[in-house]
């Protein structure tokens, strides 16, 4: 289970998260929506300890991430897959090497690494691209490789940072289907940060709206779609006023 407990974070004097509290139960996919700059990605980075909270903390499997030492943080990260907004693939490595890097850290045998790389690429419909460099792939393919890199680790949790941003509607739908398939095949707990409402409705079990640094409303897809909160309504309908 992942739990944000009254989390505060600011940068250069500007408050971003202002008391974020949210619980993500095992096996579910929670989508965090909200305006740009409201701290969605910042919240996600706290889960893997890429950022340190100013106050409050994130609890993952009973461990307060902000208090973990380097060794414990490494162990925690081994159970979490992270899909970055622009995939963050290593330019100098092939697709297969990108996927194998995290597996090598776990000291798996070479044969098992090869099997897992092949399996993960097949799951994202990119079999046969292992020898290609990230620069030779389209934006959508790079995102799928990013997802494959995360699922090859067979993590307990997968965190998706804006997985469909910048993609055309068809490719976005492919990524959405992939996220659903990943949850069904691997049974992982997911946290998805997005402002793409179609994607949120497709992949989310629950949706949490982040507004002014804290959760404005959290509920099932149906509850959010029927909300009477004017701020949430305006956001999900994409109205200017």
């Amino acid at each position, binding site marked *: 289970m992942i739990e944000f407990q009254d989390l505060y974070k600011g940068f250069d004097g500007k408050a971003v998260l202002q008391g974020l509290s949210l619980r993500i139960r095992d096996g579910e996919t929670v989508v965090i929506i909200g305006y740009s700059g409201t701290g969605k990605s910042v919240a996600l980075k706290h889960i*893997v300890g890429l950022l340190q909270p100013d106050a409050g903390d994130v609890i993952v499997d009973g461990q307060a991430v902000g208090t973990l030492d380097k060794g414990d943080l490494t162990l925690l990260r081994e159970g979490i897959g992270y899909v970055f907004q622009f995939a963050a693939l290593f330019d100098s490595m092939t697709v297969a090497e990108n996927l194998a890097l995290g597996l090598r850290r776990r000291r798996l045998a070479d044969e098992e690494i090869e099997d897992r790389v092949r399996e993960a690429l097949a799951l994202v419909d990119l079999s046969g691209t292992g020898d290609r460099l990230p620069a030779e792939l389209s934006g959508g393919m790079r995102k799928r490789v990013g997802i494959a890199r995360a699922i090859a680790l067979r993590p307990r949790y997968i965190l998706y940072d804006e997985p469909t941003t910048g993609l055309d509607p068809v490719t976005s739908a492919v990524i959405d289907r992939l996220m659903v398939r990943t949850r069904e095949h691997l049974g992982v707990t997911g946290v998805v940060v997005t402002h793409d409402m179609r994607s949120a409705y497709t992949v989310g079990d629950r949706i949490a709206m982040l507004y002014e640094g804290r959760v404005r409303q959290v509920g099932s897809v149906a509850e959010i779609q029927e909300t009477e909160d004017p701020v949430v309504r305006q956001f999900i309908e994409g109205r200017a006023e």
Partner: protein
Amino acid sequence: MIQAIGRRSISAIESVGRVGQFVMDMTRALTDVGTWARLVVGQMRRIGVDSLPVALFIAAFTGVVLALQASYTFTGAVPLYFVGTLVGKTMMLELGPVLTGLALAGRVGASMAAELGTMKVTEQVDALETLAYDPQSYLVVPRVIAATLMFPVIVAFSIAVGIITGWLTSLALLDLSTPDFIKGLKLFYVSKDVWFGLLKSASFGFTIALVGCIVGLGTRGGAEGVGRSTTRAVVYSAILILVLDAFWAVVLL
């Protein structure tokens, strides 16, 4: 004005603290041998072998110029075989290490800052961390070790090439025989000349790599930030090379 001075002082102290923390983290990462050991050889090739042509080109022309200028200065006053002395001593003690260091501050330091800066702004460094790697063990330690080991090797080749071109220039243009050049080369030679130059160059390699990594991993913003980091890495490295050069002269000569 007092506020501005205060702000700058605090910022300077913070920078020193950040560098201290970075060096401490790097020292701690040395224990993660399994991660950095297999990456050192690749970095040694990139830093050492790939930098050799630039370093040797500079050394070759430095040897030519040294021989000609020595001859011009000594004419009529000092025996010509002192050309060998001046070429040898200057290449070993000063120009070999310092000119190579300055040239490689541009080539190696800038390349490290640009590469790590790009990795930072494209979240590749964060990705590395989420894959349970320590960026210090994976990115910093191999580069710093490789540069510290390879700079003396590059400088040794540079010194040799500088002396050879100085000798060839003396033969071709200065009416100086090989035995006379060697006689001058041996005059006042002590083994300290060599190890002093190589020790100095190892410290330059360490500094250039460390600065490149600190500046690169501290990059903020997009392409503009990477450009700023690259320039900073070259400027800071060049300044530190000259400071270290003076430091070693005071301490060891």
